[in-house]
């Protein structure tokens, strides 16, 4: 029963005036029920408040604003979702143009920007249809919101191989698709991080068609399988770790934006394949705080996804093995020495 229908004091007073035993019991039950309802409402309020506070903290938006954006985005998606290609919502649409501007609403909702309104970035000239001719040119840029972060990234990017080869054409969105991407800390699962990030690099570097679209004229796509022939099981590495594990310098503040070419990229296997594995400050940095050397394994958080020779060793087992080898080696050495001494003694006799 909703609490507004059971004014607590009124009913309690009324129950006290009407003196029959049955009515007193009924009034008592009602009062308890009302108390329960009140408690439930308070709990709900606290949960909602806490929830929206947490929400607001993670997205910078209130629950109401997120809902408002979602509803507003429905209008955009009525044309810009894949289903619209099959069943155009109105006649006379330029289907070729639309095909290039279609986004999956579910994928977008799951992305870091999924709680924002489309108009946050596509902000001028998109209110009406057909959209304004220069609408695309007025689309917001990453620095509009991420100015502080962008300043640091800009410095790093300047030293990147992409900046050297394609300074004028290369932008954040060449790699970071704002409709899809999630930051690694939110993805948390290393498999998902690798899948997302390597798709970005391999999208161009493993496809002649896409590479030609962005690369400088006459620049041929370097054959990545040949370049990585020195790396054992290269394609398997690309499923387990990100290209940027080797193609960025080690940084204390996450992954650097200085993308290194093959001449400067990491080529020492032991950087990752050792007890002090770089993976713990790269791909697994978000899980490193949970490291407890489970079952005695070094870097055991890596083991949830990959067995990395040299990095995910069990030290206790290694000590046991070393002791057994030493025991056998020195055992036979001692046996040999005793045999020699015994033989010399027999010869003397």
């Amino acid at each position: 029963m909703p609490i507004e229908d059971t004014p607590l004091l009124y009913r309690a007073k009324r129950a006290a005036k009407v003196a029959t035993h049955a009515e007193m019991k009924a009034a008592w039950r009602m009062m308890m029920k009302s108390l329960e309802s009140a408690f439930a409402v308070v709990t709900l309020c606290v949960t909602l408040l806490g929830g929206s506070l947490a929400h607001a903290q993670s997205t910078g938006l209130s629950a109401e604003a997120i809902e408002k954006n979602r509803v507003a985005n429905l209008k955009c998606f009525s044309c810009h979702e894949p289903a619209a290609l099959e069943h155009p919502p109105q006649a006379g649409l330029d289907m070729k143009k639309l095909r290039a501007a279609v986004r999956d609403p579910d994928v977008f909702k799951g992305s870091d920007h999924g709680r924002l309104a489309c108009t946050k970035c596509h902000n001028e000239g998109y209110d009406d249809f057909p959209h304004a001719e220069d609408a695309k040119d007025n689309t917001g840029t990453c620095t509009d919101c991420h100015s502080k972060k962008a300043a640091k990234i800009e410095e790093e990017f300047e030293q990147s191989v992409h900046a050297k080869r394609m300074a004028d054409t290369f932008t954040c969105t060449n790699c970071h698709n704002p409709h899809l991407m999630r930051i690694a800390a939110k993805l948390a699962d290393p498999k998902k991080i690798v899948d997302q990030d390597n798709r970005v690099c391999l999208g161009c570097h493993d496809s002649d068609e896409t590479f030609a679209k962005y690369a400088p004229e006459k620049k041929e796509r370097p054959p990545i399988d040949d370049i990585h022939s020195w790396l054992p099981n290269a394609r398997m590495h690309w499923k387990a770790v990100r290209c940027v594990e080797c193609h960025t310098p080690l940084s204390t503040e996450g992954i650097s934006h200085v993308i290194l070419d093959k001449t400067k990229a990491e080529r020492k296997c032991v950087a990752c394949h050792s007890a002090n594995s770089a993976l713990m400050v790269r791909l697994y940095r978000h899980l490193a705080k949970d490291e407890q050397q489970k079952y005695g394994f070094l870097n055991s958080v890596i083991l949830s996804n990959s067995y990395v020779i040299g990095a995910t060793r069990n030290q206790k087992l290694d000590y046991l093995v070393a002791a057994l080898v030493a025991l056998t080696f020195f055992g036979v050495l001692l046996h040999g020495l005793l045999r020699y001494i015994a033989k010399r003694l027999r010869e003397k006799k």
Partner: protein
Amino acid sequence: MTERIYLLPLWLRLWHWTNAALILTLCATGVSLHFSRPGFVLIEFSWAVRIHNVAGVSLACLYAVFVVANAISGNWWQYVPKPPGILQRCWLQTRYYCWGVFKGEPEPFKITLETNFNALQALTYWAVIYMVLPITVVTGLIFLYPNFAPIEMFGMDGLLPVAILHYLSAVIILLFAIAHIYLGTMGTKVGSLFKTMITGWHEH
């Protein structure tokens, strides 16, 4: 004059020395991989991977050849621990290694054409060749083609149990190799058994 018997045919000696070379290579590269860290360079990591892969596949092929050749030639019978009295023979051999050899006693069992190995040898060789080595070879091949490994086990990468089995079985082979090389010095002279293993002729 010393008594000589032609004990080991050429194919067996070729198998033995190829097997030995491959196992030593695999041990050296395996140690380089398992204990890899900056500064410790027995064999550089990417080279160690390549050498280990080639030597590993060669060992797997050689093992298959050995099993077939052993079956065809009848040599497999030498490796079968044969009761009755096997425990007594093992005890006498152990006693010789722990005591008799220091006293200058002769070996309790002479090498003959019919019986190449003493009971302890037959038991150990049988266990290492037919029990432990197949584990190392099969787990090594899974390591080479990890798609055949289970995807996940106990919330960890499925390659982990494969890796541990590979490591432990390889360690048993290494321990065997150390003892085996040492016991090779216990012929009539220190080098006699090595000579037999090269020429095929055994001298009493």
